[in-house]
């Protein structure tokens, strides 16, 4: 006997909708963040004003509107979206890719290598992006093969590869022209991405590639044979394998794509205007790790990653505004961390749903 369908209330429908859950979780994260700010004696209004200014810009003294913050928000969104895709695609195949950070680094390193070693010509930037995609892809592919052929847990393997990428990038960087402890020779103009729409900010033409990647993500996953194999493998790798699907191919392909997405992110950040010279990095940029949260909020879908990526871009841009208003910028990391923890409870929602269903059935049975 099952509960009657007409009796599903609003709450039932809410619990069933993934989008509603994501929104709820984000709101919860902000709520706790606000409480935290109050707890340490600062003004939450400062946090919210920083956020709204990052979304919409701010009025200039002469009455014009300053869109610079919006531009920076969009600029930050790009690597978040890409790193979200890098987490999302393997997740749909059943893998936990925490290695976007390392794939990002390898992409960045490849991009600056091409930029510095090839004699500059118009359009050099395009080849830098391609090099980044290939380098990131290969770095991701290593994990894919390790998992698919040797069943190595990707969770620890990717973290190790992140650190290996970090130090390898430094060693490689030392060999590039003009290398000092922190950077290299200046990057040629032809390797940089052109500014787009909001010239006062770092927002650039990379956005077209980002949108292209989002479209590719959606298309491959939902319309192609490879995508069908991936989804089947992600839901039930045993049934997929028993039905003749090559799970090895699905797993490896997803990591190749993921590495490509993250590698591209590394290149876009490098060539987007924020860095005049090549980078000898000392730490990780963290877009890769944040990508995990992005994809979780976006429920591992193309559109979800796009929207969540923009959300995180807003949060990042608002950090510097917050800092100037005496709100520690780490509050955004805390909010993001909370969001991820809350999202992990998504599976726990099943329990709440079941309890409601059981209660309803019990009432029906006992009322006879």
């Amino acid at each position: 006997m099952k509960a009657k369908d007409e009796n599903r209330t609003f709450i039932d429908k809410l619990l069933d909708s993934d989008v509603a859950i994501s929104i709820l979780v984000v709101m919860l994260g902000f709520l706790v963040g606000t409480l935290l700010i109050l707890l340490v004696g600062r003004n939450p209004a400062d946090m919210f004003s920083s956020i709204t200014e990052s979304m919409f810009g701010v009025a200039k003294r002469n009455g014009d509107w300053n869109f610079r913050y919006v531009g920076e928000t969009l600029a930050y969104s790009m690597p978040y979206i890409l790193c979200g895709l890098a987490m999302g695609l393997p997740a749909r195949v059943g893998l936990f890719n925490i290695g976007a950070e390392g794939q990002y680094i390898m992409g960045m390193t490849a991009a600056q290598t091409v930029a510095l070693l090839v004699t500059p010509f118009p359009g050099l930037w395009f080849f830098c992006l391609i090099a980044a995609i290939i380098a990131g892809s290969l770095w991701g592919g290593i994990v894919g093969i390790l998992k698919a052929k040797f069943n190595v847990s990707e969770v620890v393997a990717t973290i190790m590869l992140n650190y290996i990428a970090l130090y390898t990038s430094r060693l490689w960087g030392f060999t590039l022209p003009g290398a000092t402890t922190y950077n290299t020779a200046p990057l040629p103009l032809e390797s940089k991405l052109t500014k787009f729409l909001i010239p006062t900010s770092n927002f650039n033409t990379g956005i077209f590639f980002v949108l292209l990647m989002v479209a590719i993500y959606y298309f491959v996953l939902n319309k192609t044979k490879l995508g069908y194999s991936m989804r089947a493998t992600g839901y039930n790798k045993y049934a997929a394998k028993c039905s003749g699907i090559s799970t090895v191919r699905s797993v490896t392909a997803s990591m190749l794509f993921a590495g490509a997405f993250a590698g591209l992110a590394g290149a876009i950040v490098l060539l987007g205007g924020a860095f005049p010279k090549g980078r000898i990095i000392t730490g990780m940029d963290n877009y890769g790790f944040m990508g995990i949260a992005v994809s979780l909020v976006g429920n591992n879908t193309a559109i979800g990653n796009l929207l969540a990526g923009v959300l995180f871009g807003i949060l990042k841009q608002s950090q510097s505004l917050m800092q100037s208003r005496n709100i520690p910028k780490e509050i955004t990391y805390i909010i993001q961390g909370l969001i991820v923890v809350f999202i992990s409870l998504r599976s726990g929602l099943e329990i709440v749903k079941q309890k409601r269903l059981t209660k309803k059935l019990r009432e029906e049975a006992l009322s006879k």
Partner: protein
Amino acid sequence: MSDYAIEMLNITKTFPGIIANDDVTLRVEKNEVHALLGENGAGKSTLMSILFGAYEADNGIIKINGKEVSIKNPNVATDIGIGMVHQHFKLVHNYTVTENIVLGREPRTRFHTLNLGIAEKKVQELSDKYGLKVDPKSKIDDISVGQQQRVEILKTLYSDSQIIIFDEPTAVLTPQEIDELMIIIKKLQAEGKTIILITHKLKEIKTVCDKCSVLRRGKYIGTVNVADVSENELASMMVGRAVKFEITKNPPKIGKVMLDVQNITVKDHNGISKVKDLSLQIHEGEILGIAGVDGNGQSELLMGLCGMLPVSEGKILLDGNDITHESIRSRIEKGLGHVPEDRHKYGMVKQFTLSENAVLKDFYKPKYSTKYHTLNFPKFKEVASQQIEDFDVRTGLGADTVAGSLSGGNQQKAIIAREIELSPKLLMIAQPTRGLDVGAIEFIRKRIIEERDKGQAILLVSFELDEIMNLCDRIAAISHGHIVGIFNDGEVSQREIGLMMASSEKGEKDEG
């Protein structure tokens, strides 16, 4: 007044999506062997789990020896003297027999550390007293299934249970081991214990039980004296209508050899040979059944044939083609059909719709491709809808229904539909009717015979000896990875096949 050891009165228990026990009343007399009969899903296990304290009922009263009790957890049940021998053994695989028996009530030293020496002695004593022949020091990983069950029995004896519940105890035993179990149950009864036997095996009820209570779809139907009723009458009570046991089938029309398995060896994931030097042949138009108790290599044989496990020696020929080392997809393309034993794990993707499940094995073929090289989803739906109609799959939304929301019987029908529609040269079916309701079972068995009449070569693996004897034209008995005998339908009795199933090497009998 009360001769009743156990009274469960007006018990109701609900789970998400189902009312498992609906106002059920059960009375068991002292020192009785009482059967609890019902189909899969009738509510027997739930009722006994309540008695054992694993669940609490929503409603109702339980009385033990006339006194009302509240059984909140298994510890309380154990203290009252109720013990349970579970169907799916609750044994920790890398602990010893003794450790498993005393888990939760370990003897302690003065310093509150473990004192397993004393426990081992007591276990040995109990084992000797009841003739259970178990070594207290051996690890669960290393002992046979029959022995594991005896460890479960020892658990109940160790805590002095007076009431012992057996949950589907014979599903994993050879006919010989079943006989031994019946003897053990009689011995326990002689020692004064009250026994409840949860089962759907009518033969066993007639062998050892005094009374039988029947549940159907969560409701209590009635209690009878076993001596006064026939197996057929019990079956009717269980199902609610007259049941036809035998399937009448025409003599087989045998064609050429479709599957030729030559001396294959298949090792499992730990490198242990589970199939050793095995050969058999299957012809068009016949059903060959593999009879054996779970764990004797049937699963590995099927996995080796379909390609999930590698074949380390020997050859497999499908319609003359050597497929021994081919990929899984290649075998499917060459005509190998497979309805797997564990349908949820290997047979379908429960998050996919029926459309997407229907094409799981051939979605990549040109017929499902649009001119832009994307997938033609409407075509999936068309194919799935046809299968749903042909095989009477009951769904909520047709081909758009999510597979996980169907009942077990309908899921199995959908899987079988898919496999048959692929027109394989050989159809391998494992446990086709496990866990299904009688309606689905009848339908599926009928369809299998129909396909065989159309000339399909079929390999059937089942743990239900009845099913094998009923459906198959030839029967191969498997034991310890070998085929120990192949017979035509009608040439042997169940008893003789049972002996085969229990032999250890070719021709030798099992001493255990």
